[in-house]
């Protein structure tokens, strides 16, 4: 088998592995697969393999995304409006819920009181409940202060739902505000 054929085989295997999974596939799982198929050298050059996999989908309605530390095929955004009518839509999150989620995303792990202090309003139980129900927030230990309040953090599901690879993909604060004043769509 020529060098090229080995590469093709590695690309096919990685493509199949990602496609066969319902959740994002971690690079380690791809490496394990390539090693098991005597393609360890391509496991070392996973970036090239993944680039080729993504390239295969250049003209497709599906694309390869880096999600929550793994890789996943998802439909492209431009086909979404058509599909939305067919696939059941999840509920939209309220503005308070989105803000609470944003505060936790940027300040995690943080307590309920901290979220309230930043937003300047008390946090309704239904808001917290809706975020927990969607699997976007999770408790992450307790803060060692009197009362030992629960600390909240975002879940891997949060990354997955918003198409982020890591929390570092969130825009920096200065980028946010700059964007805001340019767009100036305001929150009001």
């Amino acid at each position, binding site marked *: 088998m020529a060098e090229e054929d080995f590469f093709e085989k590695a690309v096919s295997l990685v493509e199949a592995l990602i496609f066969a*999974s*319902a959740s994002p596939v971690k690079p380690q799982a791809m490496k394990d697969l390539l090693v098991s198929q005597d393609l360890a050298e391509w496991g070392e050059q996973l970036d090239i393999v993944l680039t080729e996999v993504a390239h295969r989908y250049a003209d497709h309605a599906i694309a390869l995304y880096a999600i929550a530390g793994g890789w996943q095929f998802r*439909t*492209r955004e431009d086909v979404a409006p058509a599909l939305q009518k067919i696939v059941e839509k999840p509920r939209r999150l309220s503005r308070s819920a989105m*803000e609470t989620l944003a505060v936790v*995303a940027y300040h995690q792990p943080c307590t309920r009181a901290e979220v309230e202090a930043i937003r300047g309003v008390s946090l309704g139980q239904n808001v917290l409940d809706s975020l927990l129900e969607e699997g976007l927030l999770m408790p992450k230990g307790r803060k060692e202060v009197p009362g030992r309040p629960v600390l909240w953090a975002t879940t891997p599901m949060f990354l997955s739902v918003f198409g982020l690879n890591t929390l570092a993909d969130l*825009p920096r604060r200065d980028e946010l505000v700059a964007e805001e004043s340019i767009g100036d*769509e305001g929150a009001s």
Partner: protein
Amino acid sequence: MVNEVLHLHLDGFDGPLDLLLELARTQNVDLSRISILQLAEQYLAVVEKFRQEAKTVRLELAADWLVMAAWLAWLKSRLLLPATRDGDKEAEEAAGLLQERLIELEAMRAAASWLSARPRLNQTVFERPVAENHTRIDRSLLRVDLSGVVLAYLRARQRGGRKRVYAPRVIRYWSAHQARAALGRLLGCQSPVGWRYLHSILPDLHGEPPVGRKAALAGALMAGLEMAKGGQLELRQEQHFGEIEWREKE
């Protein structure tokens, strides 16, 4: 009714901080350069306007707003004082703190709208809803080990052993019938005459359980009583629980 109008109106904002942020925006400058004094005045003016409209304020509805108003009134008074006074630094710090909170709130607002604008899974993008199952279950192997064999052997032996010896235990009581025969034999030989202990006719009962010995004694007594009734012998007992004696009837 009017109270509710006030409440509903202010409720258009997510609390006093939200209103402050909105007011700060009307200053049309970078948040880090807004005038806190102007902001405090604007806030107090808005709250005062609602107060007048409402005539009376239901405190439980507007507590947050009033606390903020009181605090801002204090801040305003300090900021208005000549810069040389002691309160100056304190007020500046408080103003800085408020500014920081507004900047943070604005950033979080922006983050929320950034997140809202993201393609959302199963809303604007779709993943493959089910995974292919490439797992094959191999049931060909036997899960056995040597300790299993040994255990099974012990178990089998135990059960088998129990089974082999299991039989209802036959308790061979020395019966009244046998006692009668023994007494009959003794009556016939008439060698030493006189009272004799009844238990002396019992066989050697060593090794028998106590219940066996008692049963044998009871048997002997029954046989003795029967034969006494038949006039073949006499029985006596000197005291309660004393030895029972017998002799041939003359």
